[in-house]
Each structure stands twice: as C-alpha cells, then as structure tokens.
C-alpha cells in the first residue's frame, strides 16, 4: 500500500514536471525589414499571430507563421508581398524548426536573461535552408521571452526581386522574432 502511494506520488510529480517543460504562444510577433538606402519608403511588415513552442527539457523550438497574416502600412505593399514575392497562395506557411544548442546553460526555473544559440531549418517559399543565430531567452514570472534577429537572403528561398526595383528592395531581409511564451498546461 505504501509502495503504491509512493508510486502514485512519483507519477504525479513526473507529470507535473512534464507539464511545465513546454511553453507556447499563439500571439508571437515576427517582422521583417527589407529596406535599403535607396528605398523610397520603409519595406517592412509584421505578423502578430505567430505560434511558437519551446521544449525547455530538450531545447527544441518551433515557429509557424502564415504569410497572409503579415500586416503592412500600405495595402499595395501587402499585395505585392503576397502576390509577387512570397506567393502566399502557393506557399501559405513558413516554419522554423530548431534547437537551442546551449540549452543546458539556460535555467528556465530562474528569472534572468540568457544568451541562446539556435540552430535549425527555415522553410519558406518551398525552400528549406539552415539558419543559425544568436538570440535571447528571458525568464520572468514563469513566462519566457524569446527574441532574435537574423538575416535571410531572399535568393536562398527563390524569392525574386523584379529588375525595376532591384536597388530598392534589399537582397537580404532582416527577420526579427519577439515571442512571449506561457507554460503549456493541458
């Protein structure tokens, strides 16, 4: 009887620990900036509905974002982005599947800011490329703030820039990630 009790207690402990391993958000912010010095306007957009799931135990981290969910100051830029550049009808979703390389150096149970190194694969516009970058993981009151900025060369993803605007749109977009994750409880 006593053994059974211990077993149940252990099991309970195990599932409790399991539940706090994973963190997620559905309102992550992912933005890009492809402005050059010759751009007549800022070429940038933001998506406020990115999903992100982080497994604190293994360091696995995944992002998904719908290309049609990017918002722009100008409607015309949004249309060009969707129709001519990322072809969001054909490729609606962009994902990043990666891993925090130095995961053991991050204490998810203690408030603080940690430098994180992430390695993974970015799939966009039907192409997949390896992306390695540094970012920050901040732990505060049980929430996790994930942020990073990295460059993505458009030609790597077969996103063409029309000749006419070749010097007005950057060949490399700066991608910024800013997500606040909550513990995943079921």
């Amino acid at each position: 009887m006593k053994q059974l009790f211990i077993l149940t207690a252990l099991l309970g402990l195990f599932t409790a620990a399991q539940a706090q391993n994973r963190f997620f958000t559905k309102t992550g912010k992912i933005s890009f900036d492809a402005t050059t010095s010759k751009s007549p306007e800022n070429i940038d957009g933001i998506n406020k509905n990115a999903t992100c799931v982080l497994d604190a135990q293994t360091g696995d981290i995944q992002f998904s974002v719908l290309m049609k969910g990017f918002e722009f100051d100008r409607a015309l830029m949004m249309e060009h982005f969707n129709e001519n550049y990322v072809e969001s009808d054909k490729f609606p979703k962009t994902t990043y599947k990666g891993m925090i390389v130095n995961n053991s150096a991050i204490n998810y149970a203690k408030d603080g800011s940690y430098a994180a190194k992430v390695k993974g694969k970015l799939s966009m516009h039907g192409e997949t490329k390896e992306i390695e970058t540094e970012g920050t993981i901040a732990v505060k009151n049980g929430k996790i703030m994930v942020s990073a900025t990295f460059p993505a060369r458009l030609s790597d993803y077969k996103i063409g820039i029309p000749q006419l605007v070749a010097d007005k749109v950057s060949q490399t977009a700066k991608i910024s990630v800013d997500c606040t994750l909550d513990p995943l409880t079921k």
Partner: protein
Amino acid sequence: MNKKKKNLLLFILAILILSAGTALYTYTEFNRKAADLSKATAAHQVTALELINAFTANETESNAKYLSQVIEISGTLKKTDQDEKGNSILVLGDSASMSSVRCSLDSLHSLQEPLKPGSLVKIKGICTGFLADDLGIGSDVLINRCVPVKP
C-alpha cells in the same frame, strides 16, 4: 492657323489632365491603407465549427476556397486573448476542443467592453489560413482585420 492653335491647346490640356489623373491615381494607390471591412460583404458565411472542420478535413481545398476572402463567422466565444500592445483576439469554437478560429480584431474596431466567454459572436474578417496542429497546441484557423457584425 487659329484652328490649329486651338487644337494644340486642347491637346496640351488633355495631356495635363491625363498626367494629373495618373499622378493622383499613383499617389492614392501608393498610400492606400488596408480596407476597413465594416462595409465589406462577406463571400462566405460559416460557423466557427464548420470552418475548423473544413480546414481539418482538407487544407488545400479550404485554402483555395477561403484564403484572402472576407468571411462572416458565427460561433461561441471561448476566450479573448490580449497581447502586450492591447490587440485583442477573439477565440471561437468548442471549449472542449483545442482547435479554434482565432479572430484578430481590427484596431479601428476594438471592443467597447469585453465579451463574456460562452457568448455568441458574429464577426467578419479576412481568412489568412490554417495552422495545423503539429505542435500539440491545437489547430487554428486565423482571421485578420476582424470587425464585429451587428445582429
């Protein structure tokens, strides 16, 4: 001679009007904002559950049908998500299921007062697509630039 001069003047005037029109068109087109959907007519009227089921059953087909379209959705409010910047998202669907229709409200049409979970909501917005549940956090159909529809 006089007639020729008159013709020339008319010609110049026509060119001027034309170029002014083009400039005006370019200017307004360049500065055009995303349309406010409060007066837009919906291409499809569905319930939140119908929409989730359609996308779960066949994502490609549903993308072809709904993507970038204005759709009117009615459903039960599960909860309202609010981000740090005050943008609200109405989460519609069956509270027993993890899958939802997530409607991001147009900032021009923010709610006067919070809606109670469990209340019936009718809303229209642009369908931006489907995030299938490959991460264990439920599938979602995302709707952007939403405006509430008055009953």
